[in-house]
């Protein structure tokens, strides 16, 4: 028996040694290996290949399995985090407060890069926290209307073009919504991802939080009217699928699933989405015969469009953060940004790359002849910055619960939004009791009532550099 155990132990050790020896080294000798946590959008591979071909000192590798703020924070604090990670406006303050995002303000200044002047203004909340910079925007986006030409032609309707209003949009969407004799939908006039609901709040003149972020203002008449219109698109005008109808249209999982594949599958005539939808919709083999054009999305009181995007930041705890900076600098250059535009991974975050023939007419995709629309709506982009006085996850959970009830037509919009605002405001007060530093900032803001620039909200943390 002893012999058996010894042989087993020896074999296991030998196999472990062999596996360790055979493990592929992703970075060529002499290059610093860097790990980037991002989504598994197929375009990432191209972005990485471009960087790796250019860089003499670093080799970047994608890790799509550890995305998610919680994983990044916990792993980084435990010393096993990635070198670079993607985040967004809602999560950046949390990353800063957790001391995971590296303040690169001074590094950028040393190199003469002034992001505040170079990127789309609405992308600043993606990278700036308490006036300090923590990343470079990987892309920028505002949604527009994808038009399914075939369905419009079938209905004998002209393709819309902006600027136009939701009131002008409604009769068109109603004409393009087709139901069978039993009332079952065959085709919808309009389709959108529910998470873009703040678009309706800002277009109706409301805000999710007050300018200084100290109060949730979802209970304002403007916010209520905006969400009410969204609710009415489903239940009053019936041009957009209800959750049940949406589930019935569900097609497949994976990256780019949901509304995109439903739209690509000719289930709706108009799809409210970002330019990044094209990453999926360009797949001719998946969507044979799909013919698209784009129009500016309708607006209401204000011709503004919800701006969002991704930012790439450096893990402050990474021993290779200096080397990781090389990738962020690469992101400010032409190779990366022209690549973003060509790949349709939304829009380059630097407006200077969204001009000229190269951007407007991509010879590989000649049918995409409305790239000017994406640029124009981006210029009218308005961010929806989070409040620094409440965890964005907690706020999302509270809003999500109420919006679920709205989406399922189980609660009047006004009641739901008032309940959400009241609960979030109560949680803000609880957060302040726990966090003396935040309380100090909150009191200062309340007393001074400043009107900060977009993206210049105070951070949850100290906003310290290394």
């Amino acid at each position: 028996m002893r012999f058996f155990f010894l042989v087993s132990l020896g074999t296991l050790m030998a196999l472990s040694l062999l596996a360790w020896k055979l493990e592929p080294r992703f970075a060529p000798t002499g290059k610093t290996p860097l790990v980037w946590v991002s989504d598994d959008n197929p375009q990432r591979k191209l972005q990485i290949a471009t960087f790796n071909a250019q860089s003499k000192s670093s080799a970047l590798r994608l890790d799509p399995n550890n995305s998610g703020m919680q994983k990044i924070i916990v792993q980084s604090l435990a010393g096993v985090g990635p070198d670079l990670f993607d985040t967004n406006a809602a999560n950046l303050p949390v990353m800063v407060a957790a001391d995971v995002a590296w303040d690169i303000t001074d590094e950028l200044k040393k190199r003469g890069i002034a992001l505040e002047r170079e990127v789309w203004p609405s992308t600043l909340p993606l990278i700036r926290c308490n006036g300090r910079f923590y990343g470079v925007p990987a892309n920028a986006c505002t949604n527009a209307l994808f038009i399914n030409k075939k369905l419009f032609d079938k209905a004998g309707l002209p393709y819309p073009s902006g600027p136009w209003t939701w009131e002008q949009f409604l009769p068109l969407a109603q004409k393009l919504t087709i139901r069978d004799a039993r009332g079952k939908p065959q085709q919808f006039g309009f389709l959108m991802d529910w998470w873009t609901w703040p678009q309706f709040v800002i277009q109706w003149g409301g805000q999710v939080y007050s300018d200084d972020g100290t109060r949730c203002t979802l209970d304002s008449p403007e916010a209520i009217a905006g969400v009410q219109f969204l609710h009415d698109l489903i239940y009053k005008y019936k041009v957009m699928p209800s959750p049940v109808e949406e589930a019935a249209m569900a097609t497949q999982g994976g990256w780019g699933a949901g509304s995109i594949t439903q739209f690509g599958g000719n289930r709706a005539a108009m799809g409210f989405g970002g330019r990044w939808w094209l990453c999926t919709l360009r797949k001719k083999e998946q969507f044979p015969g799909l013919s698209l054009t784009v129009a500016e999305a309708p607006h209401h009181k204000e011709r503004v469009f919800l701006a969002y995007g991704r930012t790439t930041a450096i893990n402050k705890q990474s021993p290779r953060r200096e080397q990781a900076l090389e990738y962020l600098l690469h992101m400010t250059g032409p190779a990366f940004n022209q690549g973003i535009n060509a790949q349709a991974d939304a829009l380059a975050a630097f407006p200077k790359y969204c001009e000229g023939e190269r951007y407007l007419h991509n010879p590989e995709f000649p049918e995409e002849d409305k790239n000017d629309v994406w640029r124009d709506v981006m210029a009218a982009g308005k961010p929806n910055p989070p409040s620094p006085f409440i965890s964005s996850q907690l706020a999302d959970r509270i809003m999500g619960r109420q919006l679920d009830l709205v989406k399922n037509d189980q609660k009047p919009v006004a009641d739901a939004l008032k309940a959400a605002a009241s609960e979030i405001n109560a949680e803000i007060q609880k957060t302040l009791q726990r966090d003396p530093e935040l309380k100090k900032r909150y009191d200062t803001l309340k007393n001074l009532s400043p009107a900060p620039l977009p993206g210049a909200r105070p951070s949850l943390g100290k906003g310290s550099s290394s």
Partner: protein
Amino acid sequence: MKRRQLAIALPFILPNLLGFMLFTAGPVLFSLCIAFSNWNLMRSVPFAWTGLENFVTLWHDKDFWLYFANTLYFLIGMPFAIAGSLALALLLSQKIKGLVVYRTLLYLPSFTSGVALMILWKALYNPDFGPINYAIEALGLHAPQWLLSTQNIVGLGVEKVGFDAKQLGLGARDAIIIMGVWTAIGGSNMLLYLAALTNVPQDLTEAAELDGANRWQVFRNVTWPQLAPTTFFITVMSFIGGLQGGFEQARVMTGGGPAGTTTTLSYYIYTKAFEEFQIGYASAISWVLFSIIFVITVINWKFGNKEVAY
């Protein structure tokens, strides 16, 4: 002699002991300590011992009670799962052809990936083209919206613990219960009953039959009392598992929704610890959950155990 035996035994149990101390006992004790602190992964919140503050906050936390109610609601499926396991075990204890095949097939859900099963059930519950609603509609009945609905069979409210007539019906919680019962029926409970059935003395059964007892009377007066220790064990374990459960289902099938109706205490602990980074508070919830499970188990032992003696 004993000292020598210990010296030999210790190296053998040391790896396991070290692993247990490091990865089980250590974190458990650590979580108990930090339950009395405000530990938060946000660096702006200075660490402080807060005494019973987390537990007081918990007492007033509306979400905790909502999710505790959800957790208790999910226990509704437990008696059906136990009864189903017993029924299957009784069937499989008969001398029929292909018994091994049946046993394997019925045990299949237990060794199939849970996530895969959940995705499968998600498709089955699709309100429009799912086969379940297809069958219900074919019978001329109104098909529920399953995972998209906040309704439930006892009319549990969505935003506060209590009865709400509008919520009466079938919804996400029931969908998860039905899936849980299906998974549990052919699982380890069935195997435990099968093993227990082989231990029922044949002479007792034969004696009852000789006295003229019919099948039901034999089961009611001979088999069932003989299975009492197994039933007791299964009940206790199901209570413990049920109170700790619901995480995977919430994560994979519903995201805790709609409107938080499928969020259980275990999912709430995850949310508080790893999404909101309130580690101290999450630890306090964990220890309250442990206390609830402990008390219920003690009550089970105290009162349930009496029925087991024969």
